[in-house]
Protein backbone atom coordinates (compact mmCIF):
# COMPACT_ATOMS: atom_id res chain seq x y z
CA UNK A 1 0.00 0.00 0.00
CA UNK A 2 1.29 3.44 -0.89
CA UNK A 3 1.21 6.51 1.27
CA UNK A 4 -1.81 8.75 0.95
CA UNK A 5 -0.61 11.38 3.39
CA UNK A 6 2.93 12.18 4.44
CA UNK A 7 3.60 14.69 7.18
CA UNK A 8 7.17 15.94 7.30
CA UNK A 9 8.60 17.79 10.30
CA UNK A 10 5.47 19.83 10.92
CA UNK A 11 5.54 22.33 13.79
CA UNK A 12 2.72 24.54 14.99
CA UNK A 13 3.15 27.25 17.62
CA UNK A 14 0.38 28.74 19.70
CA UNK A 15 0.49 31.45 22.31
CA UNK A 16 2.30 34.75 22.22
CA UNK A 17 5.60 35.48 20.51
CA UNK A 18 7.28 35.79 23.93
CA UNK A 19 5.81 32.55 25.24
CA UNK A 20 5.23 30.18 22.33
CA UNK A 21 3.74 26.76 22.95
CA UNK A 22 4.52 23.95 20.51
CA UNK A 23 1.14 22.31 19.96
CA UNK A 24 2.67 20.12 17.25
CA UNK A 25 6.40 19.66 17.59
CA UNK A 26 8.51 18.63 14.58
CA UNK A 27 6.13 15.78 13.88
CA UNK A 28 6.40 13.35 10.98
CA UNK A 29 4.15 10.45 10.03
CA UNK A 30 2.61 8.70 7.07
CA UNK A 31 -0.94 7.49 6.51
CA UNK A 32 -1.57 4.79 3.92
CA UNK A 33 -4.25 4.50 1.31
CA UNK A 34 -7.53 3.04 2.53
CA UNK A 35 -6.34 2.95 6.10
CA UNK A 36 -8.23 3.56 9.34
CA UNK A 37 -5.65 5.63 11.14
CA UNK A 38 -6.12 6.91 14.69
CA UNK A 39 -4.49 9.79 16.52
CA UNK A 40 -4.74 8.87 20.18
CA UNK A 41 -3.79 10.92 23.20
CA UNK A 42 -5.03 12.87 26.20
CA UNK A 43 -6.48 16.35 25.75
CA UNK A 44 -3.81 18.91 24.98
CA UNK A 45 -1.47 16.42 23.29
CA UNK A 46 -1.87 18.17 19.93
CA UNK A 47 -3.98 15.56 18.15
CA UNK A 48 -6.80 17.92 17.26
CA UNK A 49 -4.32 20.58 16.16
CA UNK A 50 -2.67 18.05 13.86
CA UNK A 51 -6.07 17.18 12.41
CA UNK A 52 -6.84 20.87 11.84
CA UNK A 53 -3.47 21.29 10.14
CA UNK A 54 -4.37 18.50 7.75
CA UNK A 55 -7.80 20.01 7.15
CA UNK A 56 -6.27 23.44 6.54
CA UNK A 57 -8.14 25.08 9.43
CA UNK A 58 -4.74 25.96 10.89
CA UNK A 59 -1.58 26.68 8.97
CA UNK A 60 1.66 25.03 10.02
CA UNK A 61 4.66 27.13 10.94
CA UNK A 62 7.20 24.73 9.44
CA UNK A 63 7.13 21.44 7.57
CA UNK A 64 5.32 19.85 4.68
CA UNK A 65 2.00 18.07 4.32
CA UNK A 66 2.04 15.85 1.23
CA UNK A 67 -1.23 14.50 -0.08
CA UNK A 68 -0.57 11.92 -2.83
CA UNK A 69 2.85 13.46 -3.14
CA UNK A 70 1.67 17.07 -3.52
CA UNK A 71 2.43 19.59 -0.77
CA UNK A 72 -0.88 21.05 0.40
CA UNK A 73 0.50 22.92 3.42
CA UNK A 74 -0.02 26.26 1.70
CA UNK A 75 -3.57 25.60 0.52
CA UNK A 76 -6.60 27.01 2.36
CA UNK A 77 -9.17 24.55 3.74
CA UNK A 78 -11.56 24.99 0.83
CA UNK A 79 -8.88 23.97 -1.70
CA UNK A 80 -7.99 20.69 0.01
CA UNK A 81 -9.66 17.44 -1.08
CA UNK A 82 -10.17 16.39 2.55
CA UNK A 83 -13.31 16.69 4.65
CA UNK A 84 -13.94 16.81 8.36
CA UNK A 85 -16.55 15.47 10.73
CA UNK A 86 -16.45 18.02 13.54
CA UNK A 87 -16.66 17.12 17.19
CA UNK A 88 -19.89 19.15 17.54
CA UNK A 89 -20.93 18.02 14.02
CA UNK A 90 -21.28 21.72 13.00
CA UNK A 91 -24.36 20.99 10.92
CA UNK A 92 -25.80 24.19 9.47
CA UNK A 93 -28.96 24.76 11.51
CA UNK A 94 -30.68 26.87 8.87
CA UNK A 95 -30.41 24.20 6.16
CA UNK A 96 -32.24 20.91 5.73
CA UNK A 97 -30.37 17.65 6.01
CA UNK A 98 -30.29 17.38 2.21
CA UNK A 99 -28.96 20.94 1.82
CA UNK A 100 -26.32 20.24 4.44
CA UNK A 101 -25.18 17.16 2.57
CA UNK A 102 -25.24 18.93 -0.78
CA UNK A 103 -23.38 21.99 0.51
CA UNK A 104 -19.87 20.85 -0.41
CA UNK A 105 -20.78 19.84 -3.94
CA UNK A 106 -22.78 23.00 -4.44
CA UNK A 107 -19.80 25.10 -3.35
CA UNK A 108 -17.71 23.25 -5.92
CA UNK A 109 -20.22 24.30 -8.55
CA UNK A 110 -21.45 20.80 -9.29
CA UNK A 111 -24.55 20.26 -11.36
CA UNK A 112 -27.82 20.38 -9.39
CA UNK A 113 -28.89 16.95 -10.73
CA UNK A 114 -25.61 15.36 -9.64
CA UNK A 115 -25.92 16.93 -6.22
CA UNK A 116 -29.43 15.59 -5.82
CA UNK A 117 -28.37 12.08 -6.81
CA UNK A 118 -25.25 12.08 -4.63
CA UNK A 119 -27.25 13.39 -1.69
CA UNK A 120 -29.83 10.65 -2.07
CA UNK A 121 -27.06 8.04 -2.30
CA UNK A 122 -25.37 9.43 0.80
CA UNK A 123 -28.64 9.35 2.73
CA UNK A 124 -29.13 5.76 1.62
CA UNK A 125 -25.61 4.86 2.70
CA UNK A 126 -26.49 6.24 6.15
CA UNK A 127 -29.89 4.50 6.08
CA UNK A 128 -31.57 7.90 6.47
CA UNK A 129 -33.54 8.04 3.21
CA UNK A 130 -36.53 9.76 4.78
CA UNK A 131 -34.70 12.50 6.60
CA UNK A 132 -33.65 14.75 3.72
CA UNK A 133 -36.25 17.44 4.38
CA UNK A 134 -35.71 17.59 8.13
CA UNK A 135 -33.68 20.25 9.94
CA UNK A 136 -30.73 19.25 12.14
CA UNK A 137 -32.55 20.40 15.29
CA UNK A 138 -35.20 17.74 14.60
CA UNK A 139 -32.66 14.90 14.69
CA UNK A 140 -31.25 12.87 17.56
CA UNK A 141 -27.55 13.03 18.38
CA UNK A 142 -26.85 9.79 16.53
CA UNK A 143 -28.75 10.95 13.46
CA UNK A 144 -26.91 14.27 13.44
CA UNK A 145 -23.68 12.31 13.60
CA UNK A 146 -24.66 10.32 10.53
CA UNK A 147 -25.64 13.46 8.63
CA UNK A 148 -22.28 14.99 9.47
CA UNK A 149 -20.62 11.83 8.12
CA UNK A 150 -22.73 11.88 4.98
CA UNK A 151 -22.01 15.58 4.43
CA UNK A 152 -18.29 14.85 4.46
CA UNK A 153 -18.29 11.51 2.60
CA UNK A 154 -20.53 12.67 -0.24
CA UNK A 155 -17.62 14.73 -1.56
CA UNK A 156 -15.52 11.57 -1.96
CA UNK A 157 -12.59 13.17 -0.11
CA UNK A 158 -9.13 11.65 -0.33
CA UNK A 159 -9.08 11.63 3.45
CA UNK A 160 -11.91 11.82 5.96
CA UNK A 161 -10.96 13.52 9.22
CA UNK A 162 -12.97 12.68 12.33
CA UNK A 163 -12.46 14.88 15.37
CA UNK A 164 -13.56 13.12 18.58
CA UNK A 165 -16.65 12.38 16.58
CA UNK A 166 -18.16 9.81 18.90
CA UNK A 167 -17.49 11.51 22.21
CA UNK A 168 -20.88 13.23 22.39
CA UNK A 169 -22.80 9.97 22.06
CA UNK A 170 -23.86 7.74 24.91
CA UNK A 171 -22.12 4.42 25.47
CA UNK A 172 -24.39 2.09 23.50
CA UNK A 173 -24.80 4.44 20.56
CA UNK A 174 -21.04 4.90 20.51
CA UNK A 175 -20.51 1.15 20.21
CA UNK A 176 -22.98 1.02 17.30
CA UNK A 177 -21.29 3.94 15.58
CA UNK A 178 -17.88 2.33 15.93
CA UNK A 179 -19.12 -0.62 13.93
CA UNK A 180 -20.89 1.72 11.50
CA UNK A 181 -17.71 3.72 10.95
CA UNK A 182 -15.72 0.59 10.18
CA UNK A 183 -18.39 -0.50 7.69
CA UNK A 184 -18.36 2.91 6.00
CA UNK A 185 -14.62 2.92 5.76
CA UNK A 186 -14.65 -0.52 4.16
CA UNK A 187 -17.43 0.31 1.72
CA UNK A 188 -16.18 3.74 0.66
CA UNK A 189 -12.48 2.79 0.62
CA UNK A 190 -11.64 6.26 1.87
CA UNK A 191 -8.71 6.86 4.19
CA UNK A 192 -10.00 7.77 7.68
CA UNK A 193 -7.99 9.73 10.20
CA UNK A 194 -9.73 9.46 13.50
CA UNK A 195 -8.93 11.54 16.59
CA UNK A 196 -9.86 10.20 19.98
CA UNK A 197 -8.78 10.09 23.60
CA UNK A 198 -10.56 6.78 24.12
CA UNK A 199 -7.98 3.99 23.95
CA UNK A 200 -10.58 1.23 23.75
CA UNK A 201 -12.16 2.91 20.72
CA UNK A 202 -8.75 3.32 19.12
CA UNK A 203 -7.77 -0.34 19.67
CA UNK A 204 -11.01 -1.74 18.33
CA UNK A 205 -11.29 0.37 15.18
CA UNK A 206 -7.85 1.24 13.90
CA UNK A 207 -5.52 -0.30 11.36
CA UNK A 208 -2.75 1.75 12.91
CA UNK A 209 -2.56 4.09 15.86
CA UNK A 210 -0.29 7.04 16.57
CA UNK A 211 -0.14 7.69 20.29
CA UNK A 212 0.61 11.38 20.77
CA UNK A 213 2.45 12.97 23.63
CA UNK A 214 3.01 16.72 23.96
CA UNK A 215 2.95 17.48 20.24
CA UNK A 216 5.05 14.48 19.25
CA UNK A 217 4.38 10.87 18.37
CA UNK A 218 5.04 8.58 21.31
CA UNK A 219 4.53 5.44 19.24
CA UNK A 220 3.11 4.52 15.87
CA UNK A 221 1.99 1.00 15.16
CA UNK A 222 -0.82 -1.52 14.91
CA UNK A 223 -3.14 -1.85 17.93
CA UNK A 224 -1.37 -5.13 18.84
CA UNK A 225 2.06 -3.52 18.74
CA UNK A 226 0.90 -0.55 20.75
CA UNK A 227 -0.76 -2.74 23.34
CA UNK A 228 1.75 -5.50 23.74
CA UNK A 229 4.98 -3.75 22.79
CA UNK A 230 4.65 -0.21 24.08
CA UNK A 231 7.90 1.66 23.59
CA UNK A 232 7.48 3.86 26.65
CA UNK A 233 5.85 3.83 29.99
CA UNK A 234 3.69 6.77 28.79
CA UNK A 235 2.25 4.68 25.96
CA UNK A 236 1.83 1.61 28.14
CA UNK A 237 0.01 3.60 30.82
CA UNK A 238 -2.20 5.37 28.34
CA UNK A 239 -3.36 2.16 26.67
CA UNK A 240 -5.18 0.14 29.28
CA UNK A 241 -3.91 -0.87 32.69
CA UNK A 242 -0.23 -1.71 32.96
CA UNK A 243 1.66 -2.82 36.06
CA UNK A 244 5.25 -1.70 36.48
CA UNK A 245 7.56 -3.25 39.02
CA UNK A 246 11.29 -3.11 39.53
CA UNK A 247 13.04 -6.01 37.74
CA UNK A 248 14.75 -7.30 40.95
CA UNK A 249 11.35 -7.66 42.61
CA UNK A 250 10.56 -10.27 39.98
CA UNK A 251 13.79 -12.03 40.67
CA UNK A 252 15.26 -10.94 37.35
CA UNK A 253 18.89 -10.01 37.10
CA UNK A 254 18.43 -6.83 35.15
CA UNK A 255 17.91 -3.21 36.04
CA UNK A 256 14.95 -0.95 35.32
CA UNK A 257 11.26 -1.69 35.43
CA UNK A 258 9.29 -4.52 33.91
CA UNK A 259 5.72 -4.02 32.82
CA UNK A 260 2.90 -6.51 32.39
CA UNK A 261 -0.81 -6.33 31.67
CA UNK A 262 -3.28 -7.60 34.32
CA UNK A 263 -4.43 -10.40 32.02
CA UNK A 264 -0.84 -11.53 31.41
CA UNK A 265 -0.52 -12.68 35.01
CA UNK A 266 -2.21 -15.45 36.97
CA UNK A 267 -3.16 -15.33 40.60
CA UNK A 268 -2.06 -18.48 42.46
CA UNK A 269 -4.09 -18.90 45.62
CA UNK A 270 -3.11 -22.38 46.76
CA UNK A 271 0.16 -23.51 48.24
CA UNK A 272 2.15 -25.46 45.64
CA UNK A 273 -0.12 -24.50 42.74
CA UNK A 274 1.81 -24.26 39.47
CA UNK A 275 1.08 -21.85 36.59
CA UNK A 276 0.38 -23.23 33.07
CA UNK A 277 3.46 -21.51 31.71
CA UNK A 278 6.62 -21.26 33.75
CA UNK A 279 7.81 -17.74 34.46
CA UNK A 280 8.58 -15.30 37.24
CA UNK A 281 6.48 -15.79 40.38
CA UNK A 282 6.23 -13.18 43.11
CA UNK A 283 4.66 -13.30 46.56
CA UNK A 284 2.23 -10.84 47.99
CA UNK A 285 -0.96 -10.15 49.87
CA UNK A 286 -4.40 -9.62 48.35
CA UNK A 287 -5.55 -6.07 49.07
CA UNK A 288 -8.81 -5.75 47.23
CA UNK A 289 -10.83 -7.37 44.50
CA UNK A 290 -13.45 -5.93 42.22
CA UNK A 291 -15.88 -8.01 40.20
CA UNK A 292 -16.65 -6.74 36.67
CA UNK A 293 -18.71 -9.59 35.31
CA UNK A 294 -16.55 -11.03 32.55
CA UNK A 295 -13.41 -10.34 34.53
CA UNK A 296 -12.40 -9.85 38.14
CA UNK A 297 -9.53 -7.58 39.15
CA UNK A 298 -7.31 -8.50 42.08
CA UNK A 299 -5.12 -5.85 43.63
CA UNK A 300 -2.03 -7.36 45.20
CA UNK A 301 0.68 -5.73 47.30
CA UNK A 302 3.92 -7.53 46.62
CA UNK A 303 6.40 -8.27 49.36
CA UNK A 304 8.58 -5.60 47.75
CA UNK A 305 5.87 -3.08 48.63
CA UNK A 306 4.77 -2.50 45.02
CA UNK A 307 1.12 -2.79 44.07
CA UNK A 308 -0.03 -4.67 40.98
CA UNK A 309 -3.39 -5.57 39.44
CA UNK A 310 -4.12 -9.05 38.12
CA UNK A 311 -7.15 -10.03 36.07
CA UNK A 312 -8.86 -13.39 36.02
CA UNK A 313 -11.96 -14.61 34.24
CA UNK A 314 -13.07 -16.41 37.32
CA UNK A 315 -14.08 -15.17 40.69
CA UNK A 316 -11.51 -17.11 42.73
CA UNK A 317 -12.33 -18.46 46.21
CA UNK A 318 -10.03 -16.08 48.02
CA UNK A 319 -10.54 -13.27 50.55
CA UNK A 320 -8.84 -9.97 51.24
CA UNK A 321 -5.58 -10.22 53.25
CA UNK A 322 -4.89 -13.74 51.96
CA UNK A 323 -1.31 -14.61 51.02
CA UNK A 324 -1.12 -15.15 47.26
CA UNK A 325 1.39 -15.51 44.48
CA UNK A 326 1.41 -13.79 41.08
CA UNK A 327 2.73 -15.77 38.12
CA UNK A 328 3.75 -13.79 35.02
CA UNK A 329 3.70 -14.94 31.39
CA UNK A 330 7.37 -14.62 30.41
CA UNK A 331 6.63 -13.77 26.75
CA UNK A 332 4.36 -10.90 27.70
CA UNK A 333 6.76 -8.89 29.82
CA UNK A 334 7.10 -5.29 28.67
CA UNK A 335 10.55 -3.80 28.69
CA UNK A 336 10.50 -0.15 27.73
CA UNK A 337 12.08 3.18 28.50
CA UNK A 338 10.51 4.92 31.48
Amino acid sequence: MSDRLVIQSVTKFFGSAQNPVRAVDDLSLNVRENEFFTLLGPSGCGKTTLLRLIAGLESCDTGKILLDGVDIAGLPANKRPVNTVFQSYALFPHMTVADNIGFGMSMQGKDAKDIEKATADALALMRMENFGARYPSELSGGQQQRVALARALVNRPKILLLDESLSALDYKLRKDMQIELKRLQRETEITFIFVTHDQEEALSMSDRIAVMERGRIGQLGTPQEIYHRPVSRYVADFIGICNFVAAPSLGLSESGHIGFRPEDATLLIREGQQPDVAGPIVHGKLDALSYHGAVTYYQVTLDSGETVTVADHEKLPVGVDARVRVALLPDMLIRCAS
Partner: protein
Amino acid sequence: MKANPKNMPGFGLVTWLGLAFLYLPIFAVIAFSFNSGRLVTVWEGFSFEWYPRALGNHDLQRATMNSLIVAVGATFIGTVIALAAALALHGGGVPKPVKTASYTMMALPLLVPEIVIAVTTMAFFAAINLRLGLINVLIAHIVFCIPFAYAPIRARIATIPKSMSEAAKDLYADEWQAFRHVTLPLLTPGIFSGALLAFITSLDDFIITLMVAPPGASTLPVEIYSKVKRGITPEINAAASMLLAFSIFIVLLSYIINRKKVI
Protein backbone atom coordinates in the same frame (compact mmCIF):
# COMPACT_ATOMS: atom_id res chain seq x y z
CA MET B 1 -42.12 28.12 57.96
CA LYS B 2 -40.13 31.27 57.41
CA ALA B 3 -41.31 33.83 54.89
CA ASN B 4 -39.48 33.74 51.59
CA PRO B 5 -36.71 36.33 51.95
CA LYS B 6 -36.89 37.05 48.23
CA ASN B 7 -40.22 38.76 48.78
CA MET B 8 -39.54 42.14 50.35
CA PRO B 9 -42.75 43.74 51.64
CA GLY B 10 -43.83 46.66 49.50
CA PHE B 11 -41.48 45.98 46.60
CA GLY B 12 -44.29 44.51 44.52
CA LEU B 13 -46.44 47.57 45.16
CA VAL B 14 -43.60 49.92 44.18
CA THR B 15 -43.08 47.92 41.00
CA TRP B 16 -46.70 48.04 39.92
CA LEU B 17 -46.94 51.75 40.75
CA GLY B 18 -43.69 52.36 38.87
CA LEU B 19 -45.08 50.52 35.88
CA ALA B 20 -48.25 52.62 36.04
CA PHE B 21 -46.06 55.74 36.23
CA LEU B 22 -44.18 54.66 33.09
CA TYR B 23 -47.31 53.92 31.10
CA LEU B 24 -49.72 56.60 32.35
CA PRO B 25 -48.58 59.25 29.83
CA ILE B 26 -48.69 56.77 26.95
CA PHE B 27 -52.28 55.89 27.80
CA ALA B 28 -53.17 59.55 28.36
CA VAL B 29 -52.05 60.55 24.86
CA ILE B 30 -53.82 57.63 23.25
CA ALA B 31 -57.01 58.20 25.26
CA PHE B 32 -57.20 61.89 24.43
CA SER B 33 -56.59 61.20 20.77
CA PHE B 34 -60.08 59.69 20.74
CA ASN B 35 -61.68 62.69 22.45
CA SER B 36 -64.30 64.33 20.29
CA GLY B 37 -63.88 67.76 21.91
CA ARG B 38 -61.36 70.41 20.86
CA LEU B 39 -60.57 71.08 24.50
CA VAL B 40 -57.98 68.45 24.83
CA THR B 41 -58.38 67.31 28.41
CA VAL B 42 -62.12 67.65 28.77
CA TRP B 43 -63.66 64.38 27.74
CA GLU B 44 -66.57 65.00 25.40
CA GLY B 45 -67.10 61.59 23.92
CA PHE B 46 -65.42 59.04 21.74
CA SER B 47 -64.40 60.02 18.25
CA PHE B 48 -62.17 58.81 15.45
CA GLU B 49 -62.23 62.12 13.62
CA TRP B 50 -58.72 63.27 14.62
CA TYR B 51 -56.99 60.39 12.95
CA PRO B 52 -58.14 61.21 9.39
CA ARG B 53 -57.41 64.85 10.15
CA ALA B 54 -53.88 64.09 11.33
CA LEU B 55 -53.31 61.89 8.31
CA GLY B 56 -54.57 64.64 6.03
CA ASN B 57 -52.41 67.39 7.54
CA HIS B 58 -49.84 68.48 4.97
CA ASP B 59 -47.19 69.54 7.49
CA LEU B 60 -47.47 66.21 9.24
CA GLN B 61 -47.46 64.33 5.94
CA ARG B 62 -44.30 66.03 4.77
CA ALA B 63 -42.65 65.56 8.18
CA THR B 64 -43.63 61.87 8.20
CA MET B 65 -42.15 61.46 4.74
CA ASN B 66 -38.91 63.08 5.91
CA SER B 67 -38.89 60.87 9.01
CA LEU B 68 -39.31 57.73 6.95
CA ILE B 69 -36.66 58.69 4.39
CA VAL B 70 -34.15 59.47 7.13
CA ALA B 71 -35.05 56.43 9.22
CA VAL B 72 -34.86 54.00 6.33
CA GLY B 73 -31.63 55.51 5.00
CA ALA B 74 -29.94 55.76 8.40
CA THR B 75 -31.06 52.25 9.33
CA PHE B 76 -29.75 50.72 6.13
CA ILE B 77 -26.39 52.49 6.13
CA GLY B 78 -26.00 52.30 9.90
CA THR B 79 -26.79 48.59 10.01
CA VAL B 80 -24.36 47.75 7.22
CA ILE B 81 -21.60 49.69 8.96
CA ALA B 82 -22.49 48.12 12.31
CA LEU B 83 -22.51 44.63 10.79
CA ALA B 84 -19.07 45.14 9.27
CA ALA B 85 -17.78 46.53 12.57
CA ALA B 86 -19.28 43.64 14.54
CA LEU B 87 -17.66 41.08 12.23
CA ALA B 88 -14.33 42.90 12.44
CA LEU B 89 -14.37 43.26 16.21
CA HIS B 90 -15.44 39.66 16.76
CA GLY B 91 -12.80 38.11 14.57
CA GLY B 92 -9.12 38.47 15.24
CA GLY B 93 -6.80 40.72 13.29
CA VAL B 94 -7.79 44.10 14.68
CA PRO B 95 -4.96 45.63 16.75
CA LYS B 96 -5.78 46.07 20.42
CA PRO B 97 -5.64 49.90 20.51
CA VAL B 98 -7.96 50.10 17.50
CA LYS B 99 -10.33 47.72 19.25
CA THR B 100 -10.38 49.81 22.42
CA ALA B 101 -10.94 53.00 20.42
CA SER B 102 -13.77 51.33 18.53
CA TYR B 103 -15.52 50.16 21.67
CA THR B 104 -15.23 53.66 23.12
CA MET B 105 -16.67 55.21 19.96
CA MET B 106 -19.45 52.64 20.03
CA ALA B 107 -20.40 53.56 23.61
CA LEU B 108 -19.98 57.33 23.42
CA PRO B 109 -23.07 58.18 21.33
CA LEU B 110 -25.15 56.37 23.95
CA LEU B 111 -23.50 58.19 26.84
CA VAL B 112 -22.91 61.73 25.61
CA PRO B 113 -26.09 63.76 26.23
CA GLU B 114 -28.05 64.12 23.03
CA ILE B 115 -28.02 67.88 23.19
CA VAL B 116 -24.21 67.86 23.07
CA ILE B 117 -24.24 65.61 19.99
CA ALA B 118 -26.88 67.89 18.52
CA VAL B 119 -25.04 71.19 18.92
CA THR B 120 -21.61 69.83 18.07
CA THR B 121 -22.94 68.20 14.89
CA MET B 122 -24.74 71.41 14.00
CA ALA B 123 -21.57 73.42 14.60
CA PHE B 124 -19.56 70.91 12.57
CA PHE B 125 -21.91 71.10 9.59
CA ALA B 126 -21.73 74.88 9.80
CA ALA B 127 -17.93 74.76 9.99
CA ILE B 128 -17.54 72.61 6.88
CA ASN B 129 -20.44 74.47 5.26
CA LEU B 130 -22.40 71.31 4.57
CA ARG B 131 -25.90 72.33 3.49
CA LEU B 132 -27.57 69.34 1.95
CA GLY B 133 -30.96 69.59 3.64
CA LEU B 134 -32.23 66.16 4.57
CA ILE B 135 -28.80 64.63 3.92
CA ASN B 136 -27.49 66.54 6.94
CA VAL B 137 -30.18 64.94 9.07
CA LEU B 138 -29.42 61.56 7.56
CA ILE B 139 -25.72 61.80 8.40
CA ALA B 140 -26.44 62.79 11.99
CA HIS B 141 -28.84 59.87 12.34
CA ILE B 142 -26.41 57.32 10.89
CA VAL B 143 -23.96 58.15 13.69
CA PHE B 144 -26.30 57.29 16.54
CA CYS B 145 -27.99 54.42 14.67
CA ILE B 146 -24.72 52.46 14.46
CA PRO B 147 -24.40 51.60 18.18
CA PHE B 148 -28.06 50.60 18.40
CA ALA B 149 -27.77 48.31 15.39
CA TYR B 150 -24.43 46.97 16.65
CA ALA B 151 -25.52 45.60 20.03
CA PRO B 152 -27.91 42.84 18.87
CA ILE B 153 -25.66 41.88 15.94
CA ARG B 154 -22.68 41.51 18.24
CA ALA B 155 -24.73 39.49 20.72
CA ARG B 156 -25.80 37.21 17.90
CA ILE B 157 -22.30 36.70 16.54
CA ALA B 158 -21.16 35.55 19.96
CA THR B 159 -23.69 32.70 19.85
CA ILE B 160 -22.50 31.28 16.51
CA PRO B 161 -19.87 28.57 17.01
CA LYS B 162 -16.61 29.07 15.15
CA SER B 163 -17.02 25.58 13.73
CA MET B 164 -19.86 26.85 11.49
CA SER B 165 -17.67 28.87 9.16
CA GLU B 166 -14.90 26.27 9.52
CA ALA B 167 -17.27 23.57 8.36
CA ALA B 168 -18.27 25.73 5.41
CA LYS B 169 -14.64 26.24 4.43
CA ASP B 170 -13.92 22.55 4.92
CA LEU B 171 -16.77 21.95 2.47
CA TYR B 172 -15.10 24.01 -0.27
CA ALA B 173 -16.70 27.40 0.45
CA ASP B 174 -14.36 30.35 0.03
CA GLU B 175 -14.32 33.23 2.51
CA TRP B 176 -17.21 35.03 0.82
CA GLN B 177 -19.34 31.91 0.24
CA ALA B 178 -18.92 30.89 3.87
CA PHE B 179 -20.16 34.32 4.91
CA ARG B 180 -22.94 34.45 2.34
CA HIS B 181 -24.33 30.94 2.88
CA VAL B 182 -23.61 30.24 6.53
CA THR B 183 -22.63 33.20 8.72
CA LEU B 184 -25.04 35.74 7.23
CA PRO B 185 -28.18 33.55 7.42
CA LEU B 186 -27.32 32.69 11.02
CA LEU B 187 -26.83 36.38 11.81
CA THR B 188 -30.09 37.45 10.20
CA PRO B 189 -32.19 37.64 13.39
CA GLY B 190 -29.53 39.83 15.02
CA ILE B 191 -29.31 42.04 11.95
CA PHE B 192 -33.08 42.43 11.79
CA SER B 193 -33.32 43.14 15.46
CA GLY B 194 -30.52 45.71 15.28
CA ALA B 195 -32.00 47.33 12.21
CA LEU B 196 -35.39 47.63 13.89
CA LEU B 197 -33.88 49.23 16.97
CA ALA B 198 -31.89 51.64 14.80
CA PHE B 199 -35.07 52.38 12.88
CA ILE B 200 -37.17 53.38 15.88
CA THR B 201 -34.28 55.28 17.42
CA SER B 202 -34.04 57.31 14.24
CA LEU B 203 -37.79 57.67 13.97
CA ASP B 204 -38.05 58.87 17.58
CA ASP B 205 -35.10 61.20 17.60
CA PHE B 206 -36.02 64.76 18.36
CA ILE B 207 -33.24 66.92 19.80
CA ILE B 208 -30.52 66.12 17.27
CA THR B 209 -32.90 66.61 14.37
CA LEU B 210 -34.20 69.84 15.90
CA MET B 211 -30.70 71.32 15.93
CA VAL B 212 -29.41 69.84 12.69
CA ALA B 213 -32.42 70.02 10.37
CA PRO B 214 -32.50 72.98 8.03
CA PRO B 215 -35.92 74.51 7.23
CA GLY B 216 -38.08 72.09 5.31
CA ALA B 217 -36.19 69.06 6.56
CA SER B 218 -37.97 68.67 9.87
CA THR B 219 -39.10 65.21 10.90
CA LEU B 220 -42.31 64.11 12.56
CA PRO B 221 -41.14 64.54 16.18
CA VAL B 222 -39.81 68.02 15.38
CA GLU B 223 -43.11 68.91 13.73
CA ILE B 224 -45.01 67.55 16.74
CA TYR B 225 -42.77 69.60 19.03
CA SER B 226 -43.38 72.85 17.20
CA LYS B 227 -47.11 72.19 17.23
CA VAL B 228 -47.07 71.26 20.94
CA LYS B 229 -45.31 74.53 21.66
CA ARG B 230 -48.32 76.30 20.12
CA GLY B 231 -50.77 74.21 22.10
CA ILE B 232 -51.68 70.56 22.23
CA THR B 233 -54.54 69.55 19.94
CA PRO B 234 -56.34 66.20 19.62
CA GLU B 235 -54.93 66.06 16.11
CA ILE B 236 -51.40 66.07 17.55
CA ASN B 237 -52.43 63.41 20.03
CA ALA B 238 -53.67 61.30 17.15
CA ALA B 239 -50.41 61.71 15.23
CA ALA B 240 -48.44 61.02 18.41
CA SER B 241 -50.51 57.91 19.17
CA MET B 242 -49.79 56.50 15.74
CA LEU B 243 -46.07 57.08 16.22
CA LEU B 244 -46.19 55.46 19.68
CA ALA B 245 -48.10 52.45 18.39
CA PHE B 246 -45.68 52.06 15.50
CA SER B 247 -42.66 52.17 17.84
CA ILE B 248 -44.17 49.66 20.23
CA PHE B 249 -44.96 47.35 17.33
CA ILE B 250 -41.37 47.53 16.11
CA VAL B 251 -39.89 46.87 19.58
CA LEU B 252 -42.09 43.84 20.04
CA LEU B 253 -41.15 42.61 16.57
CA SER B 254 -37.49 43.03 17.43
CA TYR B 255 -37.93 40.99 20.61
CA ILE B 256 -39.76 38.21 18.81
CA ILE B 257 -37.15 37.98 16.06
CA ASN B 258 -34.25 38.00 18.48
CA ARG B 259 -35.76 35.32 20.67
CA LYS B 260 -35.09 32.58 18.10
CA LYS B 261 -31.97 30.71 19.07
CA VAL B 262 -29.20 29.68 16.71
CA ILE B 263 -29.00 26.07 17.75
